[in-house]
């Protein structure tokens, strides 16, 4: 699957990662709902870590859509409240 980190570009990841990302995302949504910034930061860095370790950058001359778009790496907690809510980044 193709994942974009907003502001950084797209990465190709094995499809199995979708479930892990989804699970982290759901927990991140819960953390944001509870106003737990520390918890959110931890989960968010885990999500970025998955992309960093499993992902290969999509070449600049390839035009593909992303399956998942993650917000910018330096997302502020108040911004996260707008991004991480409801169905999360990966709705079922």
């Amino acid at each position, binding site marked *: 699957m193709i994942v974009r980190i907003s*502001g950084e570009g797209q990465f190709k990841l094995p499809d199995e990662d979708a479930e892990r990302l989804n699970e982290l995302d759901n927990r991140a949504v819960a953390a944001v709902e509870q106003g737990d910034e520390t918890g959110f930061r931890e989960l968010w860095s885990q999500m970025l870590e998955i992309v960093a370790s499993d992902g290969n950058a999509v070449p*600049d*001359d390839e*035009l593909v*859509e*992303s399956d*998942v778009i993650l917000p910018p790496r330096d997302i502020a907690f108040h911004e996260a409240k707008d*991004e991480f809510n409801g169905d999360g980044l*990966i*709705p079922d």
Partner: protein
Amino acid sequence: MPGLAGRMSTVVKAKISRMLDRAEDPGETLDYGYQKQVELLQNVKKGIADVVTSKKRLQMQTQKLEQQVVKLDTQARQALSQGREDLARMALERKTLAQTEMQSLDQQVKELEQQQEQLTANEQRLRQKIEQFRTKKEVIKAQYSAAEAQVRISEAANGVGEEMADLGLAMQRAEDKTETMRARASAVEELEKAGAFDDITALGSGQDDIDRQLSELTSGVQVDDELTKMKAELGSGGGDSPALGQGEEKA
């Protein structure tokens, strides 16, 4: 992976597919899309130039403050060696304020630098994608009659559309940030105009108000510490001979 789609990408896709649905001549739509992409690229250049301008302004202010810090430090020493602790304290208060401002400006210059790097990288990436889109568009236009052309159009359009949307977002963020920094730069200029960083030779009458505000702004502890240190360095703070002159009340 059915149903896997980010919220943002859904919005982008919806917009693009609406545009494609409305299009009577997909070839024209592709040309229009390409034109829009090139326009966006121009805007990005302007955005980057904006960031650079803000950065330069902050850097100039930092340099000015640096000079004032050196000057005020020298003056504090001079004042102290002449037994004018009151003036020395005033100079150190101004120095502390100037240093604090300098540090925060430094931090902001660094942030703007990162912003500039990121936008530049994004711009290069989009440039490549647009080039790719231009090539694809010609191919698609040539074989539009083929059944799969429609699919290819939306693939290419979505791919580049997503890149554009993302760059738009990055630019928005950069703009917000430079806006904050501009406000910050103006605030420092205001302080400067009010004479907050002036050296003590520039002090005339009517400076009392600034001085009062300054002593409130700057940390008394830091100023006291520095005074003590300076006294020791100048050999005038032996402990048994209290500072000369009138300015003895503690801040």
